[in-house]
Every structure is written in structure tokens, then in C-alpha cells.
């Protein structure tokens, strides 16, 4: 602890700044940094170097090299630059490298040097060339601003959604401004530029002159300007060695400083953290680094090497050939604890814990002291917070140990903050590792600037899938957000590996992904398809359907081909459905009868319209007709709609040469209309009844005329009509009408049904009337039905029919029919004698 504050430098009365090493860089740079175009992404992002830029114009034959390194100097990509001269490099918020070329074209590369896309900053640039360019970050994304040879500015606030905005002309601008920057205020991007002693602010509409309040007199030109990370503050460096610091709106001055160095600084950036009272600017010259703030003295560092500053949310990263350092204001909690002779509760607690480990009774004294002041809770909180700001795991551990020690003496201390901090630190330490090289600070990680989701995305971008998965598992993220997503990314990356055989890729994917929920195989297959690996796309599908069909089993070559023939086709086709246009898709289907039938079924439930198109394409009029028939009662509510659907169906049936179906459909249309009319005129429920039921309902309702009319219109056969009327009238028990009906003409169904139905309605009296009219063949039956056994016996004997005789005999019961039974027996005996 004695020398722990050795690297702390006071600035003014209240703030300390410290600089510590993040990594020692082992990139073997051949050139000096100053000879390169440099771009480093914020949030511990990667560094891009474009060596051998054109400004030196040494040897045109040598192609420049674009190198991308992680923050720890691990090479990520290296490629020969084959396009035109580059003016400026910069990273977008999605960690894509934007290279602004002299001709206004902006090439976009991925983290691994893979070319993504390009866009142009306008035609005007073609003649005028780009003089300078800046890449800046807004809440919408990343923007690009360029200064053309005609001294005009063009900017786009979001490269993802490119909208070029040509800024108005600056009056009387003859030469390039001495310095300029892009400013973002109220969600609008501006340009601030300095020409001689004047400052201009450009927005969409106008160019206005601005003067910073309280600017020292005697300024003849501004050499450098810097905007803070959050666009809230602005610093100006003048040719008199004077630094003005104020708000970016230029309404308020914060402080000023005179460093008496007149040389233009190489870089000037803000170094502050959110919610800090102190704000400081870091100014770098060739060999000197100065931190200035609201204090009469500045902090000075000597730079041994060429260095480059990267502004961060809570400090400044400084990297050179050999080291990568972080300079920041010491956070409040750390300051409280580690300040020399601090009596803050956290400091005491840390001390107490150390004594406790030494088994010294002083531990108790310190603890008592805190407890007497009632500050133990605060002490624990301080230790926890301070641990977060430490970079060295050892120090983190001892602070956390102290916190945990203090927690023991508290009754009710919510454990979340402690647990969360432990988790966060583990994650942070993991990604800070030299091999990973994402030097995130706790503040950046926690304060919503960079959520765990974004961090995972970054890891995925760096293809660090195992680590990402470990983090997900460690933090117990829901599979869908965590592991599955990463696996899906991994699979998408995997299918792009052209040197691995389809078989291997598919197997690897299947093994890893298995049944993980939330992985969309269609995305993976689509990616493979997009790379022109159709075979692989199919294999991915097949593997998947295999694992689904038969549990996760390793594949065999034979099975694969087999499954492809059987199962795969359908899945692939369903996928192709989204890829191909409909016509092609249907044509493909046509050659796959099995897939086709599956697809039809699928459509029946899910996409009715598609089904129709499918039938149309095939000229399958029969099915098309059926489709419309189904629609007529399933989908349509209104009667007009139903009739229309039926009409379409009938047309289709005619085309299919199915005249029967067409006629039946037309009949149904007629019937529907008629039923509608009946409902209107007579009330009651007629719609959706069959023809038979409609007529029955009419008779039951006493509308005999209409019923007969209907029967005639629809050519109901006599037999049916008789059955129908018979049943209906019997149901009504309208015996009079029934009798009239029976006499209207000779019954086409005979008279036995009359007898039967009367008996069914328990009207023996009526039944007897008809029994006499029953034809001879069924006479016995009819007589038996009405219970006239004796007469039945007579008839049977007369017929000399053995079957009838036994039938009658079986109906003879007990004593009453004894005589009849004897009679039959006698007749039988006689017949046998003969």
C-alpha cells in the first residue's frame, strides 16, 4: 500500500490522475507510428494501421499494407491495400473499419479484414478530392464527415443508413481550415472549424460565426480542437499555447490554461469520466504528454516513443510501439481508500482485513472504529466499488476480501452488489486477457454503455466462440439470448469455411448444435446457400432433420443419401420457398411428388392462398374446384361470397371436365339462394341444410306447395319424395294428410313403409289401414307388424311359403295364438305330405 499511490499525480486540489500499463505490445511494427494512418476503436477496440501511406510518396510500386491488431497487439488481419489512396481510417460502432479514400469512396472492412461493402461520399468529390475526413459516433451509429478540395464539407450522420448532407459554404474560405471537428448536438451533426482567428459553426442551413466566451485575447489561429467523448465539452488550442476549455455549445467557459508551448500538438483529447467534477484535457506532442485542467499546474509525462491517444469514456488509452497504457482520473472510491493517510471507512476496512490476516488484534480496533461511526455498510460498498476500478486481479481480490470480511459484521447487507461485482470482474478479467485483448474498464462495462449482449457480440465478431459460450454459461444467460445465439453465429461462420468439406462442416454443426433451442437452421442454411454451397445447405438441413427424426446419432454416408431422398427434400424445399420465387419453387416441387403432397398438407393448414396458386400452376382444376368448395363453407360468411366461391368452383370443375361436380355445384348455388329466400320469407333456419332436409323442413312447417315446387325444381326422384313425405307427415302425426297422400297415386315404395312408420308412431289403427294395401310379397310382414297373427298365418299358408310360415310361427306367443300355431303346423304337415 505504501507505494500504491506512487503513480498518482495530483491535478489541482481534488483530483488524481494515474497511468498504468494495460499490455506490453508485442507487435513488431516495422515502421514508426507516425508514418502510418492509425485508427483505434473506442471501448478497448481493435487498432488499424495503414502502413506506407501515400503522403510520403516514396515508392509508388510498393503496395501499402493494412494491418489490424487487437488492443493487445495480437495480429487479427493483414492485407495488401489495392485500392486508391486513403485519407483517413476510422472504426464504426459495430467495429467495422471505414477507409475513406481520396476519391470519396469509403470501403468498409470487417474485423478480420474481410471486405463488407463500399459507398461513396458524393460525386462532387470525384474532381475535388478529399482533403481530410473524420469518423465520429452519434447515437444513431457512426458518421463520416469529409472536407473536399473545394473546402466544402459533406457528412453523413449514419453510415448504416446513408444520407449525404452537403454543408453550406463558408464565406470567404480560401484555404483549408487550420482545424475542424464534427460536433453532435441535439441529435444533429454540425461541423466546427477554425480559420485564422475565427470559429465557424456549420449546420444544415447556415454558417455562423461563433466566439468562445472568455477567450484570451491575441489569438491569431487555432491549432487544435478536441470534443469530449459525449460531445459535451470542447477544448481549443491556440497558437499562443493557450488552451480554452468550455462546453461544446460555446456558451460557457470551464477553465483555461497556458502551457506556453507554441508548437502545434500532435493530438489533444479529453480525459474525463461521467459525473466527475474534474475535467482535463490531455495534449500530446512528439515527446511530451500534458494533462491540464482547472488548476494552475499541469501534470507532465515524458513520452519515450511515438504514441497515439485514444479517447475513451472514462480516460485515455495511449499506445506506442512497446506499450499500451491507460490514463484516467482516479475514481472516487479508490481515492478514498488509497489516498495516503485516508481515514475513510473503506480504507479502514481494508486495513482491518489485512491485520486480520496477520492474526493481529488491530483488526478488531479498526473494525470497532468503523462500527462506532456506523459506516460499515458504506465501507463495504466502497471496497466493492473500488475493486471494480482496479486493473490488477490481486488488488481486486484483496478489496473484495475486505468487503466480504466487512460483510460478516453486518446483519442485513444485500448480497447482489458483491455477487454482481465478482461476476463482472471475472468476465472483465477474462476479456482483458492478453490473448483476447479487450481492455474494458468496469465503468464502460457497467454503465449501460456496453451491455453484456454487446460484449458477447464483440467476442463473436472476434470469433472467440468458446469464451463467449463460457461467459454465457457462467452468467447463466437464457439459452436463447446466450449460447444458442453464439452457436448460430458459429455455425454461420463455419459454413463459410471453404476449405472444409461439406460433410465435415455439416457434421460439426450438427454435433455442436444438436437440439439447442432457438437456433434457426434456416439462417445457417441460408448463409451456406448465400456462399454458393447449395450442397452444404442441404446437408445442414438433412443433418438437422436426421437428428430430429432419429435422436442425435452420428451420420453414416449411406443414411445421408437415403434421408436426402426421403426426408430432406421437403425441408430443403420449404426453405427454398423463401429463397426462390414462387414459380420456380412450384416447378421444383413438381418433380418431387412426396414433397409436393407434404407441402400441400402444410398449405392446407397454414397458407391457403399458396395452395390455390399451387393448384393453379399445375392446372389441377379438380383440386382447385374442391378448394373453392371448401372455401364456400369454411372461409366465407356472406351468402354472396359463398355463391361466388361456388361459381368459381363450378368453373374449375368444368375445366376439369368433371361435369357431375360442376352440375352439383351449380345446384348447390341455386339451393343456397333459394334457402336464403325461404329464410327471408318464412323465417326459420334453412341455410346449410341439404336438399332433402330443406324439403322436410318445409313440409314440417306446413308449406306443402313450396315443398312440391322445390321437389320439381330440383328433380327429386319420386321414391325419395315419397320416403320424405311419409317420414315428415308421420312425424307431424298428420294422419289425414298421410292418407290423402297415400291415395294420391300408387306408391313407388310400396305400402309396407307406411305400416312400419305408423307402428313406429304407435298408431296401430292407422297401420291397419295400410296393411291391407301392402303387396302380396310383404303382406305377411305387414300383418305381423300390426299384430294380426291369425291373418298372417292364413296368408302364409296360402302362399305356401316355408320361410313365411316359420316367421309367423316365431311370432306366435303363448296361449292366445295357440290355435294359429296349430294351424300352421297342420299346413306344414300337409305340405310335406304332398
Amino acid at each position, binding site marked *: 500500500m505504501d507505494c500504491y499511490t506512487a503513480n498518482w499525480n495530483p491535478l489541482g486540489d481534488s483530483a488524481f490522475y494515474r497511468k498504468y500499463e494495460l499490455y506490453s505490445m508485442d507487435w513488431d511494427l516495422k515502421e514508426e507510428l507516425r508514418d502510418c494512418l492509425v485508427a483505434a476503436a473506442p471501448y478497448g477496440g481493435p487498432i488499424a494501421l495503414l502502413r506506407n501511406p501515400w503522403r510520403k510518396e516514396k515508392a509508388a510500386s510498393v503496395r501499402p499494407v493494412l494491418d489490424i491488431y487487437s488492443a493487445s497487439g495480437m495480429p487479427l488481419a493483414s492485407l495488401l491495400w489495392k485500392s486508391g489512396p486513403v485519407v483517413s481510417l476510422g472504426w464504426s460502432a459495430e467495429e467495422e473499419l471505414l477507409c475513406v479514400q481520396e476519391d470519396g469512396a469509403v470501403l468498409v472492412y470487417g474485423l478480420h479484414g474481410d471486405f463488407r461493402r463500399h459507398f461513396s461520399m458524393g460525386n462532387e468529390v470525384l474532381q475535388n478530392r478529399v482533403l481530410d475526413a473524420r469518423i465520429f459516433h452519434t447515437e444513431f451509429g457512426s458518421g463520416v464527415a469529409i472536407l473536399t478540395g473545394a473546402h466544402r464539407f459533406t457528412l453523413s450522420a449514419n453510415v448504416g443508413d446513408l444520407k449525404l448532407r452537403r454543408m453550406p459554404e463558408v464565406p470567404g474560405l480560401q484555404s483549408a481550415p487550420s482545424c475542424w471537428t464534427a460536433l453532435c448536438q441535439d441529435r444533429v451533426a454540425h461541423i466546427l472549424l477554425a480559420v485564422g482567428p475565427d470559429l465557424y459553426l456549420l449546420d444544415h442551413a447556415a454558417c455562423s460565426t461563433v466566439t468562445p466566451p472568455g477567450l484570451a485575447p491575441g489569438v491569431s489561429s487555432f491549432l487544435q480542437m478536441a470534443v469530449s467523448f459525449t460531445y459535451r465539452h470542447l477544448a481549443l488550442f491556440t497558437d499562443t499555447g493557450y488552451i480554452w476549455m468550455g462546453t461544446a455549445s460555446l456558451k460557457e467557459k470551464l477553465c483555461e490554461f497556458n502551457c506556453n508551448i507554441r508548437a502545434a500538438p500532435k493530438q489533444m483529447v479529453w480525459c474525463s469520466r461521467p459525473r466527475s467534477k474534474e475535467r482535463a484535457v490531455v495534449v500530446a506532442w512528439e515527446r511530451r504528454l500534458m494533462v491540464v485542467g482547472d488548476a494552475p499546474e499541469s501534470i507532465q509525462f515524458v513520452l519515450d516513443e511515438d504514441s497515439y491517444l485514444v479517447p475513451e469514456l472514462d480516460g485515455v488509452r495511449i499506445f506506442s510501439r512497446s506499450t499500451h497504457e491507460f490514463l484516467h482520473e482516479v475514481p472516487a472510491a479508490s481515492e478514498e481508500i488509497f489516498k495516503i493517510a485516508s481515514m475513510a471507512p473503506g480504507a479502514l476496512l481494508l486495513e482491518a482485513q489485512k491485520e486480520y490476516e496477520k492474526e493481529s488484534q488491530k483488526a478488531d480496533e479498526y473494525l470497532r472504529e468503523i462500527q462506532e461511526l456506523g459506516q460499515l455498510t458504506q465501507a463495504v460498498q466502497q471496497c466493492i466499488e473500488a475493486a471494480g476500478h482496479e486493473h490488477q486481479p490481486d488488488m481486486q481480490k484483496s478489496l473484495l476480501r475486505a468487503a466480504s470480511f466487512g460483510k460478516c459484521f453486518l446483519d442485513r447487507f444485500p448480497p447482489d452488489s458483491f455477487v454482481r461485482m465478482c461476476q463482472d470482474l471475472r468476465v472483465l478479467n477474462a476479456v482483458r486477457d492478453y490473448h483476447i485483448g479487450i481492455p474494458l474498464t468496469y465503468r464502460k462495462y457497467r454503465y449501460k454503455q456496453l451491455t453484456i449482449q454487446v460484449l458477447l457480440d464483440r467476442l463473436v465478431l472476434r470469433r472467440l466462440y468458446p469464451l463467449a459460450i463460457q461467459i454465457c454459461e457462467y452468467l447463466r444467460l437464457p439459452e*436463447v439470448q446466450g449460447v*444458442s445465439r453464439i452457436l448460430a453465429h458459429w455455425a454461420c461462420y463455419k459454413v463459410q469455411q471453404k476449405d472444409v468439406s461439406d460433410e465435415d462442416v455439416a457434421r460439426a454443426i450438427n454435433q455442436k448444435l444438436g*437440439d439447442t*433451442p*432457438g437456433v*434457426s437452421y*434456416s439462417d445457417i442454411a441460408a448463409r451456406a446457400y448465400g456462399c454458393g454451397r447449395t450442397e452444404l445447405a442441404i446437408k445442414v438441413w438433412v443433418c438437422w*432433420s436426421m437428428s*430430429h*427424426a*432419429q435422436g442425435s*446419432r452420428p451420420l*453414416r454416408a*449411406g*443414411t445421408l443419401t*437415403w434421408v436426402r431422398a*426421403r*426426408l430432406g427434400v*421437403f*425441408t430443403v424445399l*420449404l426453405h427454398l420457398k423463401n429463397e426462390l420465387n414462387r414459380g420456380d419453387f412450384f416447378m421444383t416441387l413438381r418433380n418431387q*411428388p*412426396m414433397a409436393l*403432397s*407434404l407441402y*400441400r*398438407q*402444410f398449405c392446407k*393448414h*397454414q397458407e391457403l392462398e399458396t395452395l390455390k396458386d399451387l393448384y393453379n400452376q399445375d392446372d389441377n382444376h*379438380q383440386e382447385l374446384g*374442391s378448394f373453392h*368448395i*371448401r372455401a364456400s*363453407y*369454411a372461409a366465407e360468411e356472406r351468402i354472396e361470397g359463398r355463391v361466388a366461391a361456388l361459381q368459381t368452383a363450378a368453373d374449375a370443375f368444368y375445366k376439369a371436365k368433371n361435369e*357431375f*361436380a360442376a352440375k*352439383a*355445384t351449380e*345446384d*348447390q348455388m341455386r*339451393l343456397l339462394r333459394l334457402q336464403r329466400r325461404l329464410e327471408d320469407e318464412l323465417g326459420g333456419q334453412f341455410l*346449410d*341444410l*341439404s*336438399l*332433402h*332436409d330443406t324439403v322436410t323442413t318445409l313440409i314440417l312447417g306446413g308449406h306443402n306447395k313450396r315443398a312440391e315446387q322445390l321437389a320439381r325444381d*330440383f328433380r*327429386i*326422384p319420386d*321414391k*325419395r319424395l315419397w*320416403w*320424405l313425405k311419409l*317420414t315428415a307427415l308421420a312425424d307431424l302425426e298428420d294422419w289425414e294428410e298421410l292418407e290423402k297422400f297415400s291415395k294420391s297415386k300408387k306408391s313407388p*315404395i310400396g305400402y309396407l313403409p307406411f305400416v312400419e312408420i305408423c307402428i313406429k308412431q304407435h298408431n296401430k289403427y292407422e297401420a291397419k289401414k295400410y296393411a291391407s294395401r301392402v303387396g302380396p310379397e310383404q303382406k305377411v310382414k305387414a300383418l305381423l307388424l300390426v299384430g294380426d297373427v291369425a291373418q298372417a298365418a292364413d296368408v302364409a299358408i296360402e302362399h305356401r311359403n316355408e320361410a313365411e310360415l316359420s316367421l309367423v310361427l316365431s311370432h306366435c306367443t303363448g296361449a292366445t295364438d295357440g290355435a294359429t300355431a296349430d294351424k300352421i303346423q297342420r299346413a306344414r304337415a300337409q305340405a310335406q305330405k304332398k
Partner: protein
Amino acid sequence: MAFPHRPDAPELPDFSMLKRLARDQLIYLLEQVTSWKKDLFIEADLMSPLDRIANVSILKRNQHEVDKLYKVENKPALSSSEQLCFLVRPRIKNMRYIASLVNADKVAGRTRKYKVIFSPQKFYACEMVLEEEGIYGDVSCDEWAFSLLPLDVDLLSMELPEFFRDYFLEGDQRWINTVAQALHLLSTLYGPFPNCYGIGRCAKMAYELWRKLEEEEDGETKGRRPEIGHIFLLDRDVDFVTALCSQVVYEGLVDDTFRIKCGSVDFGPEVTSSDKSLKVLLNAEDKVFHEIRNEHFSNVFGFLSQKARNLQAQYDRRRGMDIKQMKNFVSQELKGLKQEHRLLSLHIGACESIMKKKTKQDFQELIKTEHALLEGFNIRESTSYIEEHIDRQVSPIESLRLMCLLSITENGLIPKDYRSLKTQYLQSYGPEHLLTFSNLRRAGLLTEQGPGDTLTAVESKVSKLVTDKAAGKITDAFSSLAKRSNFRAISKKLNLVCGTGMVRGVGGFIPLWSTFLGGNVLERRSWQGLDEVVRLLNCGDFAFTDMTKEDKASSESLRLILVVFLGGCTFSEISALRFLGREKGKREFIFLTTAVTNSARLMEAMSEVKA
């Protein structure tokens, strides 16, 4: 009467293992869902099978933490659990239901966990729907490979009634995989099957797929001794006739009348002669039922009354017993007698009920017509009987069944009848059946005779085709060309229709299977000698046999024959084969069917009804 346990019959494999297996798997799946409380939604169709293997108390037991059980139906669920678990068949309809639930939760800003357990397997289309509905990421999917439910000691059912429609009408081959998996499971549990036979396109595909599965699992079943010596795979569409006939054995009649569902039947008040209906499990454990299930209905009454008398005699024994004997009687026999008594009265009630229904609907007439159709005489009379049947609106399903029977036996209806019957049918039962007819036509159940398709012409033509390669061509089940049934020719060849003597199986008609399994194939171990029949069945390309050369199978196992019905089988067919097993002696048939079916179920599967 019937066959109580025959001493000479080989021992049946123990199928209760399948139940335990399925139950354990389900419990394992449910335990995977980690949460305090979860609600389980079960599809209606899965309720009964589930009931047979696990009761609610098992699911609700603490460890599995199922809080409430719901039925999957189309209305919003009022569940308060943090986790919802769905146990469903892989149907798109269900997926839509789940999607609507999840999306409703999303709108309400509720986050829950969802798990879908597909039984017996998941289909890609289902996941596709989940993905399209935008909830694929929210649900996790699992499979419960519960595909074999032992309904009885010799009967396994896959409980997949949709197999019939999906495969034979829609041409959907996805279920074949399920069948193959089920066969694979059987062979891992009960040893490999040394002899395999099959007939029909679906049978062939299922067989091939099954073989593939076995190959992949190389060696696992190799060492085992086979328990079941033969396996037959049979396609439903090879023989529609048997399935379309009225059933006359008791079990079949109970099914036709009351509908046996998953091995149990609901006897209504008219049977139980009380005011409640009663659910009765029908299997070999029901002693009374076991004795009469395979009997022709006309014998059943006699048997039951005999039984009643025996029972009474046993009761009567207690007179004249001394105290000690009485004590013995009460403690040991009385309970059994009471039970038997209860069952007896139930079955008598059922018989009465069946009788009532059958006489009302002119059952005799119906049987007579069916018989006439099978034997091929009085076709005109039968046709007008069917017409009258339709005109009187007796029953849409029955009418349809008779029409199909007429079509199959007559090799298609003559155009005039085809039109007029259809017209009559539409007038009687509603125009939507236009679609039903189109389905039946596609499945080859109800077709129109083309010119030159009259019976004699076909018979002579077929014999020519035998040598002709073209025979295979007309068999393509997926062409819209209706298949020709050639029923009459086959019937003549095999002597299927017999007079009054042999009344086994379906009223005077021997199921086709019985003749296949009745020895020829088993003895010769090939379809040899049946070549012509197989060709007439349009199955020339799809009849296969597969014998393992080394004969490890014990003679005991060779007496066990597993018959697999793809597309369902009827109780009559089962009875006929049980009878055959007894008659041929020392053989026992075991049945595996995609579902137990009957004529009404077949017709309903083909019908289009208004939703």
C-alpha cells in the same frame, strides 16, 4: 368356445415393459422442466393413451411438480403458472394454438417458459409453423417417443388413427418413420425378427426404413435370441373389403356400436341399467369378455346364459355349507363371483343394446346386401337397396360404406349408378360431400368403371398383364388414377366367400389376411404360389420376404407371429387371426396396428365435414 389359456400355445412376450418405458420417459421429460410449478396441457387424443400408462396422481406427484392439467382446446388458457408444458401430437393446428397462447402472453407482457413435447415425434412442419408465428425461440421442443401402447396381451396399438388418412389419402409418408422406429424399439426389446414378410407399398417403405435403423445400430440386437419368429407387414389398402364389412364377432360389434376407445368402452345408461354410464376396460383380464370376444354374435347370448347359470350354481353352493366352508367361500370365492356377476350383467346389457340397434336398422337386410355384394349376385337389387338407404337418410356413414363396398367388389360403379348414387347422396346429406367423393375416388374406394372395365374384361386382361411389365405401372398409388380392386378375381382365386359353413371373421367372408397367414406364406416362407393374387392386388412390386439364413430362432419363437397393420385393422380381423392361430395349432398371433379401426372410422376419415 373361445380359448382360455391353451396349454399348447407359446408364451406371449411381456408387453407391460413398453408401458413402463413410456411412463418413465414422460416423467423424465417432465422433470427436465425445471421450475416450481408447471401446468400441463394435454391434447384430447392423447388423454386416453396417457391414462392407460400413467394416472394423474403420478404426474401430479411432488417430484414432477405438475400443478394443473388442461386439455388442449381452442380457447384461451387461464393458467397462472410460470411454465406451460404442452403434450401434443405433431399437428399444425396444435402449433397454432400454442402460438396464440404465447403471443397473447407477449402482448400482455408476460414472460413464461414454454415446452412442447411432441408424441410420438416432432415434424419439421410444426417447427416451421412455430418459426413463422415468431415463437420458435420462445419454446423448447422435446419428443416423447410413445408409439406403442399395449391394449391387450396380444395387441399393440400406435393410436395413430390419422395414419390412414395421412398416408392413404394425402400421400404423407412422415408417419412411416414412426412405424419404423416402433418396429426398431420392438426388435431391441424382444430380439430381432428372423423372418419378415410384407405386402403393400407402405409396408415396403416402413420395412426398408426399419432396416436402415437397425443397420445404424449395428450389433446391438445381434446377440439376442429372437422371441418372435415372424413378422408380417400389411397395408390397409390391400384389403379394404374386410374392413368395410359389418362386424359380427362380439368385440367387433361392441366397437361398431359403442366405439371402443383405446381399449375401453363407455357403456351408457341403457347398458348398465342404472342412470350412470360406466367406463369398462375390455381386455383379456375381463374373464367374461375374453371368452366371448371372438365369438359370432349369434353364439354370444347362448354362452352368456350358460355362464349365468354356472354362476348361479356356484352361488347356490353356499346352501348346505357349514360355518367353516362358508368362511372359506366368502373370503376366497365370493369376490371373484361378484366381479364376474357384474361383468356378466354388463355384457348381457351390451348384447341387448346391440340387438335392439341391429333389429331397428334392419340389420338382417344389411347383412344380406353385404353378402350379396361379396358374392356378386343381385347387384341391381343391392344397388337399389343402397339407394333406398340413402333416400331414407338412414346414416351418412353407413350409406357411404355400402357405396364403397359396391364399388370395390364391382371394380368401380357403372357410370349411371355412379352419378345417380352420388346425386342422391348429396341431396340427402349435403353438398359438402362432393369433397368426400373426391377423396374416396383418390383413395380408390369409390370409383367409376371406365369403358372396358367390366368384370369379365378385367379378369381376362389381368391374366394377360401378369406377364406384362405394365402391371406395375397402374399401381402408383400417388397418381390420381384410381386403383382397380380386382376383388372378384381374387375372391375366386382364394375362395374367400364361402357359403354358410365357415362363419369365421366377417359374416361369411374370410379376411384376406387369414388366407395369407393361414399357412402358405408361413410354410413356404415366400409369396410363391400366391404370385397371381399378389399381382391382382396390384402389389406385384411391393410384396417381399426376408429371411435370415442362420436359424438361431428357437422353435418356440417361430410359433409367434407379429402382424403389423399399416392403416389400422378391425377387431374382426384380429378375431379371425386369433382363430387361425388356434386352428393351425401351436401358433399365436400378436398384433401391432396403427390404430384399431372399423368401417365407420374409415369412412369418417375420408369424409369432409363442415368445421
